[in-house]
């Protein structure tokens, strides 16, 4: 009886230690074989969504956490992100109103994955699914302004973002400046005048005033050159 009583705890400890040892060996072999790939297989949202029985939002959240780990792992290793666009597409298809995968995912695709086309299509998908949110047209405008240097497109997206609720205070200023930059001085001037009238603080009001004076000077000099003489008041 005594021997039996001792045998079970001994076997328990031995099997526990054995499992830990085997797990450690397995981990070592896997590390030698290939880097851990968390997003090797990305299913299609059309088939995955029905199986989730209404819990697609949770799945999108968990996938977003995993995408973060995937990006982090590959930034530290090969800096290749072959599955990133597909995983982001899945996360945003599972929960089309989850903004972070569009916004951060767009940045990852653009600056880490060097896939501007995928980044733009992801942001455009987000803007179409969330027409009331300013963030996605704002990010698209930023891409066209900073990366593509397509000021017409940037203006179009920022103008759209500037009309949406909750947009940052600086957006109308960006729009006004872009109008000036694309040669549409009168529209730019109107926007700055509107900003001057509606500004909440003195610094913004003085900035608007400065821009109005600069644009008036530009406009007046142009009018003098082409002889139209239309001094903006």
């Amino acid at each position, binding site marked *: 009886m005594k021997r039996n009583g001792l045998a079970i705890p001994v076997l328990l400890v031995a099997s526990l230690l054995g499992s830990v040892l085997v797990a450690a060996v397995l981990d070592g072999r896997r590390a030698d074989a290939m880097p851990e790939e968390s997003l090797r297989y990305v299913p299609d949202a059309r088939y995955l969504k*029905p199986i989730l029985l*209404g*819990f697609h939002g949770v799945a999108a*959240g968990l996938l*977003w*956490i995993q995408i*973060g780990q995937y990006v982090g792992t590959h930034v530290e290793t090969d800096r290749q992100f072959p599955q990133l666009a597909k995983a982001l597409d899945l996360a945003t298809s599972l*929960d089309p*109103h989850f*903004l972070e995968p569009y916004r951060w995912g767009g940045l990852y695709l653009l600056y880490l994955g060097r896939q501007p086309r995928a980044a733009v299509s992801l942001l455009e998908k987000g803007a179409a699914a969330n027409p009331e949110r300013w963030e996605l047209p704002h990010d698209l405008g930023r891409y066209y302004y900073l990366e593509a240097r397509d000021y017409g497109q940037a203006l179009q997206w920022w103008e759209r973002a500037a009309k949406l609720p909750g947009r940052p205070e600086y957006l109308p200023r960006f729009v006004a400046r872009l109008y000036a930059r694309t040669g549409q001085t009168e529209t730019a001037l109107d926007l700055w005048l509107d900003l001057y009238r509606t500004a909440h603080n003195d610094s913004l009001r003085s900035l608007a005033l400065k821009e109005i004076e600069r644009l008036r000077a530009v406009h007046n000099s142009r009018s003098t050159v082409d002889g139209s003489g239309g001094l903006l008041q």
Partner: protein
Amino acid sequence: MKTHSVPQFPQLVGESRRANVDRLGSARFEESPQLAGGFFKVWTIALNTFKEAVRDRILYAILIFALVMLAGSAILVTISVSGEGTIIKHLGLACISIFGTLIALFLGIGLVSKEIEKRTVYTIISKPIHRYQFILGKYLGLLLTLLVNIGIMALVLFGLAYLWEGISSPRLLLAVLFIFLELMIVTALVMLFSTFSSPALSAIFTLCLVVAGHLSADLRLFAARFGSAATRLLAEALYFLLPNLSRLNFKDQAVHGLGVNAGIAALSFSYALLYVAALVLAAMTLFQWRDFK
């Protein structure tokens, strides 16, 4: 409706002004005109079902696990790049829904069948209680148990959402309300099966219907695309017959603060109540037909 008065148990009549509902707990009620009302009988059964349920260890096991999962979500999101609030709310609502279903299932499977198996049902139906009152009381008792548990889980979720985002949207409350409505359907389903089958079969049937209930819209779509006329007709019939649980899913609106169409919400609410009423009435009918000899 069959009523069972006391002749088989004259000793209980001996107590004249008291009706004993032994197995249902220690509750006793005075047979005064006010207390003799059907509502009181149903309420007594409901209260005792609730007391019986809260004594069940499995309830605490599920509840503690759910609370640990809820708290765990707050730790999980620390490895997320951003969007922590969204993930916490999604995970929290999923926890409430999944663990609520488990509670409904584990407690519901024995709701009627346990009474039959232990033969305590004979004592109960020999009292001046209608069978439908017994079923209704049992159902309401389990709902009360669910309400308390869902309330505890919801409070934890609201607390977490508040801690993380500084605000707790009232839309979260709406999502929890609709989860509760879904659980009302699950409870009614499990009770319906419990009236005529074993606990294991009741659990299997209910789970199958819960899965089918989330897929019924896809079933209709699938039949419309690929099926023959007969298949389409069958799919259409199943679509309306099966509980459409996807209609009660307002989780996305709650998590992202999206607008909720009041008309759709009101219709979904009415749909759930009508479906529950149909299931409870079916359970009453089956229990009424059952021969206890």
